[in-house]
């Protein structure tokens, strides 16, 4: 007999709550996505491209125990740590494993003076100027940024290399400082507590990491 005057059904009363909550959660999720998953930590860490020659750091640096500086000769002199010239490889591989197809590539490269197109793994934005020599000579080990390369069959990126990550160490260098002579010993561990050692070395080497912009940006 009575016709309903209601415009909306009963369940409509729950809609606003649902909509509101879902909007809120969506928004916070988006922020989270950018802040967390789009950060270098997730974009760059684990980057492990295939190299033209499957050079094994585990074999050379790890098992054979070559010092990093045998190949990366300029790491202490220059801001840029060089990739070795084919010539360097030839020091040994002119005689060792000469029959392997990969070593043949080396020989070609050496013979007709064509560079080997290695794929870059660790790279900073171009407006960021990182100086290897400053860090290595101040007792920051390769391992702090590159990880245990001596255990990597194929090298991959282990640290985010993001600005925040840099700042973290620039604010607390003692977490990473070690005696300069051990910077290339990736498996080295301090006898004492790292922080006490770090504090001592910080004084000894007079380490004052800067945070102002032109330290890295020009």
């Amino acid at each position, binding site marked *: 007999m009575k016709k309903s005057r209601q415009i909306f059904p009963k369940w409509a009363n729950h809609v606003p709550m649902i909509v509101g909550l879902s909007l809120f959660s969506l928004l916070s999720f988006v922020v989270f996505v950018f802040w967390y998953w789009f950060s270098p930590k997730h974009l760059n860490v684990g980057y492990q491209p295939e190299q033209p020659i499957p050079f094994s750091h585990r074999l050379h640096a790890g098992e054979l125990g070559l010092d990093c500086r045998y190949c990366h000769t300029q790491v202490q002199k220059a801001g840029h740590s060089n990739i070795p010239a084919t010539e360097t490889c030839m020091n040994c591989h002119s005689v060792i494993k000469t029959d392997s197809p990969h070593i043949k590539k080396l020989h070609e490269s050496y013979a007709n003076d064509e560079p080997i197109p290695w794929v870059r793994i660790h790279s900073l934005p171009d407006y960021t100027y990182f100086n290897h020599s400053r860090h290595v000579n101040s007792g920051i080990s390769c391992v702090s940024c590159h990880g245990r390369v001596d255990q990597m069959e194929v090298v991959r990126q282990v640290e985010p290399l993001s600005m925040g990550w840099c700042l973290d160490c620039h604010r607390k260098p003692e977490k990473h400082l070690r005696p300069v002579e051990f910077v290339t010993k990736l498996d080295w561990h301090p006898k004492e507590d790292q922080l006490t050692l770090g504090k001592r070395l910080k004084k000894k080497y007079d380490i004052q990491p800067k945070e102002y912009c032109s330290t890295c940006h*020009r």
Partner: protein
Amino acid sequence: MSSLEDLSEEEKRKKPMLKKRFYRSQSDLSNDESSGRFKEREFQEGAAFLDAPVSRRTFLKLMGATAALAGASGCSFNFRKPVQTIYPYAKRSEYDVADQSLYFATSMALGEDVVGVLAKSYEGRPIKIEGNPSHSQSLGATGIFQQSSLLDLYDPDRQKNVSYLGKYRSKEDFSAWLKGVSTEHFATQGEGLCILTEAQTSPTFYRLMKRFQLKFPKAKVFSYEPINNDNRLRGIYSVTGRWYQPDYFYDKARLIVSLDSDFLGLESGSLLATKRFANGRDPEKTQNKLSRMYVCEPQLTVTGSKADHRLAIKGLRVEYFLYVLVAKLLDARVVTLPSTLVKQVRRLAFSYEKEVDIDFLRALVEDILKYRKQVLFVAGPRQPEQVHALLYLLNKQLSSRTLHRYRSHAYQQFSFVTESNVTSIRNFAAHLKTGVVDTFLCLGGDPVYQAPSDVDVVGALKFVKNKVHVTLHENDTSTHCDWVVPRSHYLESWGDLKASDGSSSVVQPVIRPLYDSLSDNECMSLLVSSYSDGYRLLRATWRQFSNKQWRSCLHNGVLSVPSSDEWGVSFSDRGCLKALSKVKLFKRNQYMEIGFVSSFLYDGRFSNNGWLQELPDSISKLTWDNAALIGVETASKFSLKSGDVVTLRVKDRDIDIPVFVLPGHVSDSITLSLGYGRRVAGRVGERKGFDVYPMIRTDDFYFAEKATLIKTGDVYPFASTQEHGSMEDRPFYRQANLSHYIKHPEFAKEMVEVENLQSLWKEREFTDGNQWGMVIDLARCTGCSVCTIACQAENNIPIVGKEEVLNGREMHWIRVDRYFEGEGESATAVHQPVACLHCETAPCEQVCPVAATVHGEEGTNDMVYNRCVGTRYCADNCPAKVRRFNYFDYHQRNPQAQSKDRVHFFDYLKEPDPTIQLQFNPNVTVRMRGVMEKCSFCIQRIMKGKSDAGNDQRDILDGEVQTACQQACPAEAISFGNILDKNSEVFKKKDLHRDYHILNELHLKARVSYSASITNPNSHLAHKKESAAHG
């Protein structure tokens, strides 16, 4: 030949830069890669953008585009960092420490001017030119031409390969052909062989030239430089009978009298002159015994603006002024001349006596008497021979021999050298017209464009069968030649040069020739014998050196030191008399004269050089244009204002050119600067400005008389970087004359009207480490503007083009402010370089909403491009207005930009030409559009110094870190260093009484301060200057 083994050794040494073509850098830094073509890409789309050429810029751009999507910096569309490929050397080479620049000593010739330079090579490509401290003409300084020569090397508009009638030919084809030419002419002793060359100063060249002339006695050689020192050379010859080149010691003189000479400006030897002059004007170095300078000149020059007393006088009357002066000196019995000469001089003087500004003259004579033996007379190259002849006599009698010395011209035995350029070019055309010439070789230059209008080069060339032009750029001449051969740039060729002081320096390549080019020497070698490369030729010339010596020569860049002084002994009055007798009696009628001057494009050879095109002229502050400079009086007489186009007519020839009204320019006189308005130059230089060569004739080569001027009614827009000439009585440029300074040493600090603001809070104090600061000494600065160019080269500063300069958007980080003092033709100007002041309480910093400009702990005001969003608030709040905003991406808008393969939608359509990219300094970010930029105190150099010092655990030494502007400055006006270090030069400078800060009342606590300029006017004339002093 003896140098074979060390040749190979040389080859090895050069390997990194000689090995491959320029576009495949040897570097193992991927951001030096200039082409993506070798890369294999892991992610096809959007990948590998980082090894695109100016990756820094592309990166910023991509960041910009993607940043909007990605909250985190530095991730690209494919959520992975794009693939970059690293190219290590295959074979190790010496000196290949990555990102450690190498310096190679070489030297650059410009006309007869030779300057030794150090080329900074990064990864095998020269990226900066510095002065060579061990070269006598440079002493570490460079001029605008040396600095910007780098851009010419990389100019993509250069002649790239040999072409015959516009068709491609290989270098070998040409060599073979030329070989043939020389053999067939050998029979005829070179009959019909003709060479026209630019001024040559290379010993090797002349060694080959000697052999050439022996082999082809009948061959004709001519030499032409529109800007030259003929009159000086010939004037002195006329009285000494020797081809002497003078060398003046402005630092030792107490009184300098310059007659229409811009020896601080664009004249040859200006670097050395500037350094010496500045030393003579330095209150500390001279213990307040400053030199005093009188200048007589028609148009205001930097020399004139440094003068204590300046007489604006028409160029053609300067000599009459000299006669009057000499007459006065004769009366005063301080000079003695042979009676015949005396009679002639008095006769000429008499006609002008009434015209001359009497108290100027009186003061001058008085000072000459006062400073006997310490007076130096110098006349400009535009003044006729007799003037130089007389000056030679005056200098000999009025100044001690320590003030000036003369050296015989190294190549006086070659007739085409001693013959004046005007005669040479005239004879050249005449000789061609006789039709005997069948093969004509033009080494550099552009006679078609540069020859006087009454010399019909084009017509003459029609008589010649084979025409060869060896040239850096294609130009008018090469369009009339059938063989066009690329000429090697000095940075890519071997050679040697002999400076006017007799010292020889080496020219060594810093990069393998970019194109199939030949050096002049190599061309000559083709003619005289078989082809041999520049290095062999050079080594042969200097075979006396052992390899060890040779290596040290290459290291120092100097082959032989200045030859011992020669002191002109005999002199004949006949020569001078002959010259003087030619002088016409001065007529009183008021004719309009036109004077021709060199410009920042020199004689036009730099017209395709964007840096020089955009460098504001020292006085007019014009860019991208030349103009008919006229005085204020002339302007009102013809009711003209700047930009009005007029028709200039002298005798039968005329041009249309806009006038630019300039205070300090004498009335009834027009100044035209050469080098503009080229029809064929390149994408940058073509049809910029106005070609004034048509106004030059062989008979009025430096000045043209009886010019008429008709207003056409058209108006032409001038892009001047400083519209406002007056200082509005604001104390920015502070100067006082010596007496005032001695009475009130603190005058500069006392010149501030407004009380200093006080701070409401406790400010940060910068008390430890290196606190960088700079002092610019206005007493030394001449306003030559080389700092601007040096900065531009160091910091990847783009050119913006005339339109954008008109919009007021020029990008120079350090500008040279020019303020006029005084009225009308007697006005003069002061120059003040202004860069970022690096205020400790920087107004720019607090207004930036994103903290893109903040302060470094070492007192530098840092600009962080990748944080900048471009609100321009900082620029608005900067009281010195030194901040520059990238309204567009100027690198992509450069006329030489080329289309690029775009990585993403927001990427740019164009990018700079690959060769231009080779010039970029990899240690400075290439800014994208929409970001602010400004002087950074060359932060990249500071950081280099810090890391070097840090690596060997020491403090930075004073002078270890030099800013680009400081290093280039020939006047040593800029000092930079740690202001906390009591022993540093900059500390001493800041300690001076005359040290002051501009805008100090704003409590900026600026790190850049100025040393007030001190002038030394004649007390009787002083009051004139006095009024201006507090301008």
